[in-house]
């Protein structure tokens, strides 16, 4: 049984008396200790997917309109608020691009970790503080005995992101969802944070869902990848299979758009146009207006899932030919 199973998830936004679909039936699963990468341009529905899994959509105009989310075999959509809170932050935790969205600026970081620990575990104040220092050491904050009493603003961006990771890992979660955790960081700091996550995963066996717009980050850290476009999974595969045989023009377009550091490319093969707005209707394949290979069928019919390999799937009418 997979640790997390998302089955045909649909999400919509209530707007001007209408429900506009933003996530249009996506399915994926994550095993224990595994890292799944979700990649795609902004506006494709990556963050809403993670917020839906975490049950953080209450009080927003966003609704889950279909599908199942199962965690350790339990249907998360059936849980009441109290049951959900028992899971979130302990068995399942999340880190965001901007750590200040989860760190409270007016409390010392140690107190925040202690509070999170005591919310989910029976542990004394003293033991929780000792554990907080341990956690800061684990995420390689220098001088943790002193830094435990720092306020978030007294730390650098990279250190704050590490404190976030410490907090997320404080209850030893089975699943960590990281939404663009390194996007705001410099490359050298990004490398440190990604190495840290991989190291902790190895030691603690945490499964990770890593959301990023950066195919390089995904390629270096994930066991398997789901490429999202306009609320759907365009292509999914184990990481090595994906890059060995790209089977969707969108994935290829994303890859060719990257200006690489290791060789000269005279002109980038940019994907023309942009991600359509959620209020724009598109017939056929959602990618066809931007696709260099689009044919009549792409303008008419939505592509079904094609199986390229064992675990390699593509939603493209020409999936087999898309691969070289």
């Amino acid at each position, binding site marked *: 049984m997979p640790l997390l199973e998302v089955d045909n998830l649909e999400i919509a936004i209530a707007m001007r008396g209408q429900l506009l679909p933003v996530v249009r039936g996506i399915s994926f699963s994550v095993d224990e200790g595994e890292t799944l990468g979700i990649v795609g341009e902004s506006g494709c529905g990556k963050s809403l997917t993670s917020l839906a899994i975490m049950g953080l959509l209450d009080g927003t105009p966003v609704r889950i309109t279909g599908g199942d989310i199962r965690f350790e075999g339990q249907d998360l959509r059936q849980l009441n608020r109290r049951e959900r809170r028992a899971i979130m932050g302990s068995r399942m935790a999340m880190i965001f691009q901007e750590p200040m969205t989860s760190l409270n600026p007016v409390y010392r970081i140690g107190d925040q970790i202690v509070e999170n620990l005591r919310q989910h575990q029976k542990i004394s104040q003293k033991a929780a503080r000792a554990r907080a220092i341990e956690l800061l050491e684990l995420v390689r904050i220098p001088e943790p005995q002193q830094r435990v009493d720092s306020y978030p603003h007294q730390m650098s961006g990279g250190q704050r992101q590490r404190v976030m990771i410490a907090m997320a890992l404080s209850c030893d979660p089975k699943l960590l969802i990281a939404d663009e955790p390194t996007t705001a960081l*410099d490359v050298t700091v990004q490398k440190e944070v990604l190495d840290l996550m991989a190291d902790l995963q190895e030691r603690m066996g945490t499964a990770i869902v890593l959301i990023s717009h950066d*195919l390089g*980050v995904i390629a270096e850290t994930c066991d398997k990848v789901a490429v999202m476009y306009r609320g759907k999974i365009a292509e999914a595969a184990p990481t090595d299979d994906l890059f060995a045989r790209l089977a969707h023009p969108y994935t290829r377009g*994303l890859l060719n*758009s990257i200006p*690489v550091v290791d060789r000269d490319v005279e002109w980038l093969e*940019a994907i023309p146009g*942009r991600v359509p707005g959620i209020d724009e209707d598109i017939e056929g394949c959602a990618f066809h207006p931007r696709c260099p290979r689009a044919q009549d069928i792409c303008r008419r019919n939505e592509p079904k899932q094609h199986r390229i390999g064992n675990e390699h799937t593509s939603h493209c009418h020409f999936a087999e030919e898309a691969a070289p």
Partner: protein
Amino acid sequence: MSAPLLSVRDLKTHFTVKQPGLFSDDRIVRAVDGISFDIEPGEVLSLVGESGCGKSTVGRTLTRLEEATSGVAEFEGQDILQMPPAAFRPLRRDIQMIFQDPFASLNPRLTIARTLGEPLFIHKLAKSREEARRKIGETLELVGMDPAVMSRYPHEFSGGQRQRIGIARVMIVEPKLVIADEAVSALDVSIQAQVLNLIKRLQRKSGIAMLFISHDLGVVRHISDRVAVMFKGQIVEMGDKHQIFEAPKHAYTQELLSAIPRVASHREAV
């Protein structure tokens, strides 16, 4: 050799930051701390480095948005840092800036026609309304936009389109030097590729010299002729882009290059 278009020598821009408390001394931030470089006509020089190393301050000092602490910057032989504001004003046409967030630099209440018409008017580059309209239309086409967008407002455009408008506003005055500060950093990779291609194409076609400021080494490799790597207010390594990317000498350049996450197929293709 021809004379450089811009010649910067030992430029320093320090900031004094007031510390809270009666008896604490003011803190001095050495944002730019003695850098020197030349830009030849038609050349693209990139400044690359991590956040806070002083890249933007270099650009802002050269356009006199910040005051230099010391040093010389000669543009076509004139020291632009010391000249009185009135003498610098005509040079504002020759030295143009493109910013990361084009929206912040576009007036939301002006149509695109007026946004692009204003610099024509300020620098007296159009003799009549008809000529202005024709130039605006041509420049919009140049940056890949339909001239029909003239009557619309900035908020009606996506990030990539706004950056095209920002570029149009710079190109329309036919500058000699463009300083682009993280001009594509806020864009999604596919849109970034479109805008990067556009900047490269325009630069090639017009021969405008450019100081291209970015934290992204891939972007820098794509656009530059030469590269200067900055660290803590100083240039630690400068050279031809092939030397910098294929045979980096300074440990910091090497560290930056090795930290970039790569897709395997990109690495094998070397």
